[in-house]
């Protein structure tokens, strides 16, 4: 029983310290600055904001374009 508590707390402390270290490092890297740009970080030149990236197979607008290329 005592052993189990020691185990839980050791494990939890290791997990906690890892998290503290990781997040401390993350904050230092400025993760909380410039949130507006953060929200846009999933877009890039090839898949820019405003481009829809998912269609049912065979039904997207690019189909016609590609057919024409063939």
């Amino acid at each position: 029983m005592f052993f189990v508590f020691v185990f839980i707390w050791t494990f939890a402390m290791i997990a906690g310290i890892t998290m503290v270290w990781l997040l401390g490092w993350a904050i230092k890297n400025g993760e909380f600055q410039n949130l507006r740009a953060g929200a846009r970080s999933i877009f890039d030149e090839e898949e820019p904001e405003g481009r829809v990236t998912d269609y049912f197979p065979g039904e997207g607008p690019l189909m016609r374009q590609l057919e024409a290329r063939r």
Partner: protein
Amino acid sequence: MSATSDSRGEVVSRIEVDRSAEWVVTVYWASALLWLTVATLAGLISSIKLHSPGFLGNIEWLTFGRIRPVHWDTAVYGFGGTAASGTLLWLQARLCQTRIPFPTLLIAGGVVFNVGILLGSIGVLMGKSTGVETLEFPLWAMPLLVIPYVFIVIANFKMYFNRRNAHTYVSQWYLMAVTIWFPVLVLSAEACTNLGAVDGVAQAIANWWYGHNVVGLFATPTGIAAAYYLIPKVIGKPVHSYHLSLLGFWSNAIFYNWAGTHHLTGGPLPAWTITIGVVGSMMMFIPVITIGINHHMTMVGSFHHLKTSPTLRFAVMGSMVYTLSSFQGALESLRSHQEITHFTHYTIGHVHFGMYGFFAPLMFAMMYYAMPRLTGNEWISARLIRIHFWCTLGGMLLYTLAMCYAGIRQGLMMNDPTVPFLNIVKFTIPYLWIRTAAGLILLAGTVAFLINFWRIVQPHRLRFVTPTLMTTERDYDMLLKKEKELSQ
């Protein structure tokens, strides 16, 4: 994404990231679908047994009390665990713009994980269940589940430290939190129950603290992470309010894990422990509302894309049900509500609403979006996707409505001592039949998805379709190249 150079001068493009993840993520998601099928079948057998107890009645290892925990455990660990792991690895790789590290080890881990679930389920069917709900797997099966998860945690951190992207996206917050929470959860709960740190009522609290958190701190954050990525990405519009998303994350982290004791309302617990559970549950309105605002407001003006995008359909269904089922869950925790619905089918309805209405659709959305990009193939059939979607939505709604209605009536009758108990049982039977029908609908959807999934991982399918999920010329060129290689 423009190709970025890392410190070693390597160029990692989005396509390369996806290629590095192809086998790892496919293995995890394929296992997820197989376990989903197993879980659905086990659920169906359990459901049939409740209205027709003679069904397979003479086989001891298929008795209700054994097949029912196998249903939940294969659903939550088999489907949930592998689907979430695949999601975590792919999403983290993409958002960090790195290759997936040590793919062979991760695939081996996935295999071991599957073996663990298989052995654990067989153990339960043989009668070796520990008797602690959600932790039924015999203790010897647990290392087979925990060790592969450690690989995933390490891979996750490695990707995060090697990330090329300067910013940590909100999805990554949730994914990082899951990797920290889940091992702590499992080990603390096992220690407090099956390893015997505490007995009796304290053990029951530990059990339900875990039972609630496995949904709330494992399935939910993964689902939310998927929604935060997919919805903006598919419609090409950034998240409505990025500030709110961080508030939602922290309030979720703080309040959810206190909510579990509402599963024992009215039980032999000190009143204050239940009050904490109720308070924790009510506070969940904060993250639920912030997350809801974010997901739904992002969608405003883009609902017409639901018609054309399979990913978006599932993602929006998931995020809408997240709001609804969380509201339902918070209200359900109130003592006056629990007086009626506790101990009834209402709870079962709520669980399926959350797991099959919120978590599963978001995992499906993830797969629909990622698989063409991972394999370079196209989904073979739009019709099968539509069947899958309508079966998931219809089956889930039928299930939830039937069970919640039956549960309320059942609870009201149970609180009226003049109604004989067997009359209550007889009252629920027609609704249990409806549940079996709903289960069959869900199974039909799963089979449609399985067929589509089976065919997308076959390389030769490529030449028969016109890729339209691929929206850039460059993706298309890659496909042509691959097609040429295959035809040689």
